[in-house]
């Protein structure tokens, strides 16, 4: 039995190191050389997703009793960092799937867990997470999608935005408002598990109304979904009757761990940008010597390395706290804020160091530059992180 700390099963560090080594071999052999072939034309990397399923990554954080790997937060953060060092979109393929699984495993009934988690752990059934709407993002409590009860069924009507993995998914963790909730506060927001046919034509009143064309984070789909009189069984209400009105609180708690994940993505992209900058600076010559020998560039590298190290330490510290069962709102918020901003800064620095080549699609730094801003927006913008952090700081007043 592996050591338990406050209910978190700790992953053996030797085993974690071996997992990371195997993942690194794959990222270097298969991901880094080919990412742009899929990213630029916005093509889904089917073979990469299959290999991720073979590694077991669709079950990375799903409890082992349902067939998952049940990795601790630290190991999961390292996995996300390594995937993102190769190509940030790969982290996206499993992230909202695992947020959906986390909601089910943490708040679902035993029947709900048994129904969905085993096939989600293998990647055979894919999940996504649907909170945002055209008119509500940061202010998630203002969402408008409605769920009305009709006997043993619920009828869903509304439009959801920014559903990553929405097309591939067979289950959607959907946040909708039940009528007795008040619009002004987050009352009545409830999580349902929608079952749909994967693909662009879902049927039964669920449709993919639009595929969003994105600056970065390409290769995997982010879609708009609409629900017109879509009917759900009562047993698709997450957590049963107890779930009514608890949806937003539960979703935000799942997102708290999601923040460590986004921070880890930032670290991965920042590492990739730094590595690219360092090797280019040693090779490119100007005015008779490698540009790394010009102090302006050398100092830039020094600053980049320092920020990268700080971002990684903040992220690992947040993961460590989560694994120790400590409160993580502050640590996760700081890690997310700093690592995502660092990724953006380092991506731009790497581009400067690459000169004109940085602007060309022949080098990967333009991809880091396009991917990095997502981390400062998704799962709580930097402003929202500052809200979270300052609230935690001022909580005692």
């Amino acid at each position, binding site marked *: 039995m592996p050591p338990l700390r406050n209910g978190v099963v700790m992953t053996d560090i030797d*085993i974690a190191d*071996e997992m990371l080594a195997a993942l690194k*071999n794959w990222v270097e052999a298969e991901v880094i050389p080919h990412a742009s072939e899929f990213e630029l034309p916005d093509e889904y990397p089917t073979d990469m997703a299959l290999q991720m399923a073979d*590694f*077991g990554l669709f079950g*990375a954080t799903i409890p082992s009793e349902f067939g998952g790997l049940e990795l601790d937060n630290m190991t999961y953060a390292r996995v996300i960092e390594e995937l993102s060092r190769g190509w940030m979109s790969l982290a996206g393929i499993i992230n909202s799937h695992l947020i959906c699984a986390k909601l089910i495993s943490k708040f679902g009934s035993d029947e709900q867990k048994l129904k969905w988690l085993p096939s989600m752990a293998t990647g055979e059934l894919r999940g996504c997470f649907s909170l945002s709407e055209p008119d509500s993002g940061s202010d998630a409590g203002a969402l408008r999608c409605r769920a009305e009860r009709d006997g043993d069924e619920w009828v869903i009507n509304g439009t959801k935005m920014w559903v990553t993995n929405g097309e591939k998914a067979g289950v959607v963790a959907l946040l909708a408002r039940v009528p007795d909730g008040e619009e002004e506060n987050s009352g009545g927001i409830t999580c349902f598990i929608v079952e749909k046919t994967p693909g662009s034509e879902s049927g039964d009143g669920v449709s993919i109304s639009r595929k969003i064309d994105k600056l970065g984070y390409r290769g995997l789909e982010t879609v708009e979904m609409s629900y017109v009189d879509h009917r759900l069984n009562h047993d698709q209400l997450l957590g049963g009757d107890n779930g009514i009105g608890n949806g937003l609180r539960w979703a935000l708690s799942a997102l708290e761990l999601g923040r460590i994940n986004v921070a880890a993505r930032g670290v991965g992209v920042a590492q990739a940008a730094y590595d690219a900058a360092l090797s280019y600076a040693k090779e490119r010559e100007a005015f008779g010597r490698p540009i790394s020998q010009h102090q302006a560039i050398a100092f830039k590298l020094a600053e980049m390395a320092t920020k990268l190290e700080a971002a990684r330490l903040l992220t690992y510290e947040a993961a460590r706290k989560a694994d120790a069962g400590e409160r993580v709102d502050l640590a996760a918020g700081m890690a997310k804020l700093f690592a995502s901003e660092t990724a953006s800064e380092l991506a731009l620095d790497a581009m400067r160091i690459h000169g004109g080549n940085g602007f060309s699609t022949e080098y990967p730094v333009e991809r880091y530059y396009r991917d990095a801003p997502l981390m400062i927006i998704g799962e709580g913008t930097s402003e929202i992180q500052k809200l979270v952090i300052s609230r935690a700081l001022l909580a005692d007043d």
Partner: protein
Amino acid sequence: MKVVVCVKQIPDPALPGELDPSTNYLKRDDKLILDESDSYGVEMALQLVEGAGGGEVSLVSMAPNNEVSGLRTALAMGAEDAILVSDNALAGSDALGTARVLAAAISRLSPDLVLAGVESSDGYTGTVPEMIAGVLDIPSITFAKQIEIDGNTVKVQRQTEAGYDDVECQTPALVSVTAGVVEPRYPSFKGIMAAKKKPVEELDLSALGLDESSVGQSGARQETVRVTEAEERQAGEVIEDEGDAHEKIVEFLGELKIV
């Protein structure tokens, strides 16, 4: 069906290697990893057993300092168990000594088929597999690119310069697998977790019933007489195109027997 794969654990080729100046042996004090040349044998064995719908893949390795890191990698890919032979008296073994040790370990497992790499990445004498077959007195086939088991017959496509020969022999037999003919799988994370719990039997010379005089430095009849630095790579030949460059390139490739 029981398949045994010989798995050599070697110093990480990505790190700079070093020779011990007094013996000219490669220093093997750091962690050793699975020789990539043997990952093809492991993959081939797993595919054979999966294709047969049952059976077992076991590993044998001889390595210093009770090293198991490379074995764990192969166990994570899906092999069932392993025998590791480690004994201070084995230091300085030559290829025949190594073959004697591996043969003794293999015979404890009574396999239908033994797989090995054509040559290792560090020593690359390319002789150990056939010597094992000699010691065990079983037939051996070299340079396999494809293997099929049909009852008591093993059928092999044996790679040649021109293509391949179809050869076959009776089991038990030893087959050496050409590097690159299959794509070794990445270990799954569950496989990595499971590998920690898979049995690795560690044996020394006395457990194998081998005499010190036939192995190790004392049994070695092969001696490294001298080690010289590899020659610096020479600059290539530059062909100026005066309309006949393509002919010169074809001629050059012809000399290398590439075309």
